[in-house]
């Protein structure tokens, strides 16, 4: 087991791009080694030691690394990018692209996760205890697939385009979601426990379950009547018919 604690030394205003903060990178490294790694404040490279107080306890492989971030990193982007194992716990908010391209391990954010949390996620698990921004588990511009595996749970609300271009994996939004969740879903599962609008546009495959209210439905779904999922009755829709979709949309 190796535990690394990062405490920001200042209140960042310009976003810090810190894709270096992953268990894979930190595994087996000393505080000094980690401190020498570079993050970018805008156009200016800065060693992590300038930005964070770093303490390291023990030494281990990535799978047994736990990174705990205490303090405000609402302006630190790309935490956990591409990580394959281990654990990151952020006690507070995080900036965009947290856990992007993640392949394994887990990230827990106790506060708000800004947009693109779990962008193009391949595996592992992300838990956001607060709200999330736009594009939870979505893709990069122009890519046919966003998230392809893993699981994201947001306990609060998420904004628009949850799981855009989802090709696999599972997203659970315990609160409300903005417009167009699961747009262009190609085979993943999204559960929204609160309200949302226009779910499942251009869905070809996959499942979307909305337990709250859908005020605006896309006018391109075939109503297949009532169906029970996990003991709860939903109206089942199949579509999107404009893309010959066989996606299943369950709305309470």
């Amino acid at each position, binding site marked *: 087991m190796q535990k690394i604690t990062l405490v920001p030394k200042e209140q960042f205003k310009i976003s810090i791009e810190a894709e270096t903060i992953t268990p894979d990178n930190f595994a087996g490294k000393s505080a000094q080694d980690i401190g020498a790694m570079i993050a970018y404040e*805008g*156009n200016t490279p800065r060693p992590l030691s300038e930005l964070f107080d770093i303490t390291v306890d023990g030494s281990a492989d990535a799978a047994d690394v736990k990174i705990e971030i205490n303090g405000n990193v609402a302006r630190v982007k790309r935490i956990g990018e591409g990580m394959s194992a281990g654990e990151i716990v952020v006690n507070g908010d995080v900036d965009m692209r947290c856990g992007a391209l993640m392949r394994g391990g887990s990230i827990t954010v106790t506060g708000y996760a800004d947009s693109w949390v779990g962008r193009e996620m391949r595996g592992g698990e992300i838990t956001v205890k607060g709200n999330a921004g736009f594009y939870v588990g979505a893709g990069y*511009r*122009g890519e046919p697939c966003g998230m392809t595996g893993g699981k994201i749970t947001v306990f609060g609300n998420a904004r628009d385009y949850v799981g855009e271009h989802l090709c696999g994996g599972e997203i659970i939004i315990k609160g409300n979601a903005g417009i167009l969740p699961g747009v262009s879903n190609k085979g993943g599962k999204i559960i929204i426990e609160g309200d949302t609008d226009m779910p499942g546009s251009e869905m070809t495959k996959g499942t979307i379950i909305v337990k709250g209210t859908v005020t605006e439905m896309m006018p391109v779904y075939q109503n297949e009547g009532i169906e029970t999922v996990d003991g709860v009755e939903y109206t089942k829709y199949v579509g999107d018919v404009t893309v010959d979709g066989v996606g299943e949309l369950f709305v309470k």
Partner: protein
Amino acid sequence: MLIKDVICPFCGCLCDDLAVEVENNKVIDVKHACKIGAAKIRGHNRIEAPMMRESKTDEFREVSYDEAINEAARILVDSKRPLMYGWASCLCEMMKKGVLLAEEVGGILDNTASVCHGPSALGVQEKGIPTGTLGQFANRADVVIFWGCNPVQAHPRHMSRYSVFAKGFFTNKGRKDRKIVVVDVRKTDTAEMADEYVQVNPGEDYKLLAAFRAAVADKADVIPDTVAGVSKEKIVELAAAMKGAKYGIVYFGMGVTQTRCKYKNIDIAVSLTTDLNAYTKFSIIPMRGHYNVTGAGQVFAWETGYVNGIDMSRGVPYYNPGETCSNDMLMREELDSAFVIGGDAGAHFPAQSIARMAKIPVIQVDPFHNPTTEMANIVIPVKVSGVELAGTAYRMDSVCLRMRKLVDVDFPSDEEVLDKILAKVKEIKGVS
């Protein structure tokens, strides 16, 4: 002296048939232009000399070009997150310089598409864009749809030159050969002259476009009785008219790019257009505003791979609207300086964004006093491109033309100003 075949430097139509009478190096008459183009070419009161001030509430003081340029360079070099915005009312030649400067200072390069047709680019990135040149539509289109755009007000000669009244090879009766459909949230002047006006509820274009797709695919049975305020009957009827076109064209504007669903409206409009090509020929094209905002997208794309919202801070370009466009960054108060050129952020960003601009040094390069000037610390006046300077611009359909110079003035060109700032930046950074 009458200068013929002048290209109008106002909107994305780039009408190239203007005739401008110039006497003693002054424009005295502008023929064939619309009211807006004529006003632009005739000119307005302009900023006479470079100006600077410490605080934005101070009065400006006149300074030399060297002083303004040196100070601008210093601000850019000292910035960790400089925004370089505008690049639309100017020529491609200077955009190339702008890219170089943004690289050199590690800035964010954004053009006015950010608050105009940036979402159209995102839509294109989802689905592509079946389109063509304006002459193709003039020669062939018999079904013309204006969706969320109002050319009568925004592109006054568009209808006569390209889209409605223009007579073409296969449309030799002009207006009579075409069915004109306008989709908008209000009955605009363009809607007044259409054969069909479809009033869509604000923010519900996306659903209406989806319903059209279903109707075109003969899957109207799933469509509810009304969608977005439009009856199913109307949707089915218009879908049939679209499929029955010999050549259909969709012109769209900020009525779809700025409304709810934003780029997804373009995404689905492109899909509808693509679907229609299974039955006939259909194209779609954005109605671009600034005369060379299309050029900004073209130049940025070939230089960097991306159209706008390009973050150069890491030495390789990174693009992600929502993260890297002007208002994304202003909203987060992330920027530490702004360089505004060939666009007026002050007049076209939400007040809350501009309030954030008030807190950082702002450098403006522009011929005219405008709301950005009110927020600026350094103001550097330049030539009016396309009137006082020749160079390249791209029409809304990406046809590239060479703008003419009509009169000579003593102001430097924006390219010269950029060159000098670049040289000074390199000097301060100690690079050759």
